[in-house]
């Protein structure tokens, strides 16, 4: 309960400090809209030459783009800026102040920074998702909606754990920011269904960088084409990664000796 209240406070403070820079909202809206139009235009170019891409119809690929932007926005609202700040805090020694506070350090570190305007990506993505679902002839029933919600929660948990594990590496190594760049480079591959990629790339995007579980699986769930085993796998992976990232974080914290030591 206390944790939820703490998260609420962080989000409120983040919101207040960001709303001071209102021009950034317009810049962000512009960039997000441009980015989204580009993704949709790429689909349009592809489907001007075909009407089926590895078993995905245009409307389903639009659903995928919607999910892609929702997840992208969600990462950029809290996880990416907070963990970026954590990496800087290790270098500057400010992490020591966080550790002296009487709350769970992982919680404090994970919500330290909020970029409210990046919610524009989430809103636009949700809009594209909603439009694509109304255009889709196959109705989204209760089962699909429930599967989609579960898949999105797993997506969030998996992506968060992945970022947390990479950030925790900073207790041992410097320049972890560069490793996070690998995530962004790989994430753009999620604009297309993972199934079209050759085996080696599909495995990389599933196991090394979890793009498949972050984007493709929820998009499949809402289109009602997700095998049940896949969803169970996503849940299992989400739980396992959350537990492992927690263990890894505690391990890293033990190793940390402070800035002045």
């Amino acid at each position, binding site marked *: 309960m206390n944790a939820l209240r703490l998260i609420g406070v962080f989000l409120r403070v983040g919101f207040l400090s960001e709303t001071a820079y209102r021009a950034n909202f317009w810049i962000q809206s512009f960039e997000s809209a441009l980015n989204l139009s580009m993704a949709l235009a790429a689909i349009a170019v592809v489907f001007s*030459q075909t009407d089926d891409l590895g078993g995905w119809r245009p409307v389903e690929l639009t659903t995928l783009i919607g999910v892609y932007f929702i997840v992208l926005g969600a990462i950029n609202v809290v996880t990416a800026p907070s963990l970026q700040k954590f990496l800087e805090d290790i270098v500057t020694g400010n992490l020591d102040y966080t550790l002296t506070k009487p709350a769970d350090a992982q919680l404090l570190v994970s919500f330290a920074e909020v970029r409210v305007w990046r919610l524009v990506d989430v809103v636009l993505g949700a809009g594209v998702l909603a439009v694509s679902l109304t255009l889709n002839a196959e109705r989204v029933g209760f089962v699909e909606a429930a599967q989609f919600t579960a898949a999105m929660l797993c997506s969030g948990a998996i992506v968060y754990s992945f970022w947390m594990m990479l950030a925790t590496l900073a207790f041992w190594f410097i320049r972890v920011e560069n490793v996070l760049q690998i995530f962004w480079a790989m994430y753009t591959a999620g604009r297309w269904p993972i199934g079209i990629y050759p085996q080696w790339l599909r495995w990389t995007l599933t196991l090394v960088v979890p793009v498949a579980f972050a984007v493709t699986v929820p998009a499949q769930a809402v289109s009602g084409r997700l095998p049940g085993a896949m969803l169970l796998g996503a849940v299992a992976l989400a739980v396992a990664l959350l537990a492992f990232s927690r263990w890894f974080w505690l391990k890293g914290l033990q190793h940390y000796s402070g800035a002045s030591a």
Partner: protein
Amino acid sequence: MSRWAALYRAFLRTALLEQIQYRASGAIWMIGSILEPVVFLVVWSTVAQAQGGSVEGYGVREFAAYYVVLLIVNHLTFSWTMHDFQFRIQFGSLSFDLLRPVHPIHGDIAANLAYKCVMLVVMLPALIVLTIAFGPRFAPVAWSLAAFAPALVLAFLLRFLFEWALALAAFWTTRVTAINQIYFSLQMFLAGRVAPIALLPWWLRDAAHDLPFYYMVGFPVELALGRLTPTAALVGFATQLLWLVVTAAIVVIVWRRAAVKFAAVGS
């Protein structure tokens, strides 16, 4: 002439040492630039297969050839000045560049070349792996292949100067990311990165032929693959040169105004 040779030798030596020092971060940045053409190659191969083997004269292995060459050309012509110029102004390192008795663009060119030399270590294995994985089919034409070399040099100069001109926007605004994103979006489609421009709708293809972006990447790629008629190649070279002259003029004029406007912090 020997002054320039000595200058570039000195610039290149320091830039090389610097790049070797930061080789790991440099290599990580390469992942994105290798993955992008691979993704579009896979997408278009899938389309070609679904359409009975080929789209607009591109079969699966022709797409492979297109994107392998595009990977090389895109890598050799790209630059990053427009992403870090605002930091050079903000943190003041530009002041040091201005103290030197040469135009700062020369240091940037040297750094760019040095990065690409060091990244051969990543690039060559990647090319070998991609060639084995996707089996590109080349049907090179001698004259066209010979024309590829000058087209590539001109493409590098055009793209470098164009992006350097864009970078100068940082003297007037702090919102350069929005400008960079517009440029990036146009470039993705019109330079032939999302698809060979032959696959674009006719109005976009026409725009691509008139605007500078195609001559930064797509034009040399298509020359290397022997996909252009001699007339198209000549018209291409003329347009490329025209845009190069225009862009160079813009850099000269805007730089003069920018350097006057620049007031370093602390001065």
